[in-house]
């Protein structure tokens, strides 16, 4: 069994009008089955309101399923007694860099999780040091978070989760509020966690180019998984992606347009080099 598994996961919430009367139910997640293997890098794509963030919050037991089940490392998230073990094993990084840093000094923020877990003082310092080094923020350990850039703040948040020694990390649109430079920094740090530390990564985003290094990509739409496969398999279906309100990288789009015009190119081209080489080969 995988490290994260969901079966027939449904999450509904009640809509109320101004007087508090029930207006109806919205199904944010609708019968989702997911099975993530240890060490995998999974990306979940979808436009705003597709249900991807709601799904993510189930993995950290912030939300509890209306129907179906979620297991993290074999533990059922709906069982109250597992909640803290689950949160330690499946760390979570959120979208807004300002609203998740608790400490007034970088190193103290990274130490917050281990403090809550009751880790001895000496070990907290060791964990803080190794986590900050892993995301390349060690030299900023004495800085105030307010003075950091968005990308740096998100890396501190990742270090904060890493210091809890999780088995997997769920990142809920960690780059949505960053500029291109910050986005690159964060994605680089996430890939390093997966490849160097072997941590299972679930990356939620609406930027397709951030997912090309994932092992598997899931595309969500109105609470369901609409597409699933390797990045190449998913990105080869340009029209379907556009229907799902997603932005296809220009290189993939260009390759797709050229194919339509009868140029012999393979499906699902992801990088500039790939396209240039393929075109050079087709001549």
């Amino acid at each position, binding site marked *: 069994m995988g490290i994260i598994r969901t079966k027939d996961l449904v999450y509904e919430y009640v809509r109320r009008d101004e007087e508090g009367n029930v207006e109806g139910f919205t199904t944010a997640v609708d019968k989702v089955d997911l099975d993530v293997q240890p060490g995998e890098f999974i990306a979940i794509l979808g436009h705003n309101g597709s249900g991807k963030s709601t799904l993510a919050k189930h993995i*950290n037991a*912030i939300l509890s399923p209306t129907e179906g089940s979620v297991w993290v490392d074999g533990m059922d998230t709906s069982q109250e007694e597992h909640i*803290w073990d689950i*949160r*330690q094993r499946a*760390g*979570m990084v*959120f979208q*807004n860099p*300002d*609203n*998740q*840093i*608790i*400490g*007034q*000094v970088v*190193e*103290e923020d990274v*130490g*917050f*999780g*281990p*403090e*809550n*877990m*009751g*880790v*001895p*003082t000496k070990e*907290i*310092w060791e964990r*803080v040091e190794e986590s900050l080094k892993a995301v390349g923020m060690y030299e900023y350990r004495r800085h105030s*978070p*307010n003075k950091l850039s968005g990308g740096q703040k998100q890396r501190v948040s990742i270090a*904060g*989760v890493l210091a*809890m020694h999780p088995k997997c990390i769920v990142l809920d649109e960690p780059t949505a509020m960053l500029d291109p430079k910050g986005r690159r920094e964060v994605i680089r740090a996430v890939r390093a966690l997966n490849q160097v530390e072997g941590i299972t990564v679930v990356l939620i985003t609406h930027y397709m180019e951030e997912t090309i290094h994932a092992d598997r990509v899931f595309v969500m739409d109105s609470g369901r998984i609409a597409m699933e496969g390797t990045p190449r398999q998913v990105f080869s279906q340009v029209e379907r992606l556009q229907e799902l309100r997603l932005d296809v990288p220009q290189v993939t789009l260009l390759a797709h347009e050229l194919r339509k015009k009868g140029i012999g190119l393979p499906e699902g081209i992801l990088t500039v080099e790939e396209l240039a080489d393929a075109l050079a080969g087709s001549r």
Partner: protein
Amino acid sequence: MLRDITLGQYYQTESVIHRLDPRVKLGGTLLYIISLFFFRNFLGYGVAAVFLATVIGLSHVPFRFIVKGMKAIVFLLLITVTFNLFLTPGTELVSVWKLTITVEGLRTAATMAIRLTMLIIGSSLMTLTTTPNNLTDGMESMMKPLKAFRVPVHEVAMIMSIALRFIPILLEETDKIMKAQIARGADFETGNIVRRAKALVPLLVPLFISAFRRANDLAMAMEARCYRGGEGRTKMKPLIYQRRDRLGYLCIFAYLAIGITVGRLRL
């Protein structure tokens, strides 16, 4: 415009006062403030002044910087002095029109001015040499006995440290909201009090909505990182008394002994 407000500012430098355990500084400041109310003669304030000057010297915080922070309370000081000067009954010294200055009035006014100035310099010296974090840690540790009376000491300390972290963020946000509304023709600076109060609505509504949103996000982030109150929590930076801290306590008690002995002499 709002960023000029400096609340409990910290002055970054290296000094023995900065390194002291926050509990020593908190306790010391408290005792020092109490001592100011015990003196019966000006000699006592002289001792306190020497003590304060020594601490300022050791702290490496420029005196100019401390005085700059005093500007905000000059007004308060003037009011206190004026009231005491004119409204204390006693032996008449000078009388102009309906205003009378008495010997007692002069004495009380002078005492008040000295007391208030030294009180504020002393307490601002504490915040200038202690990081807000250290301060909350110190408070939490000193208030621990109150736990027996069901005072949520840990929670209060946590609230304080979160507030300190978010004050600069919210100030910056207020600035941005103000600009956004000024760009829509809002006017925060003219008109009478009612008009000005009304003008604040477009500022306060977005600010409150944002603050609640942040609080919600933060609570979720804290829970996701296994925060469940003070029980079973360890500390990354536990407070442990060093030799210099014991020395610090000794100095404070020495000051108290000398100050009160001298200060209560009937001259």
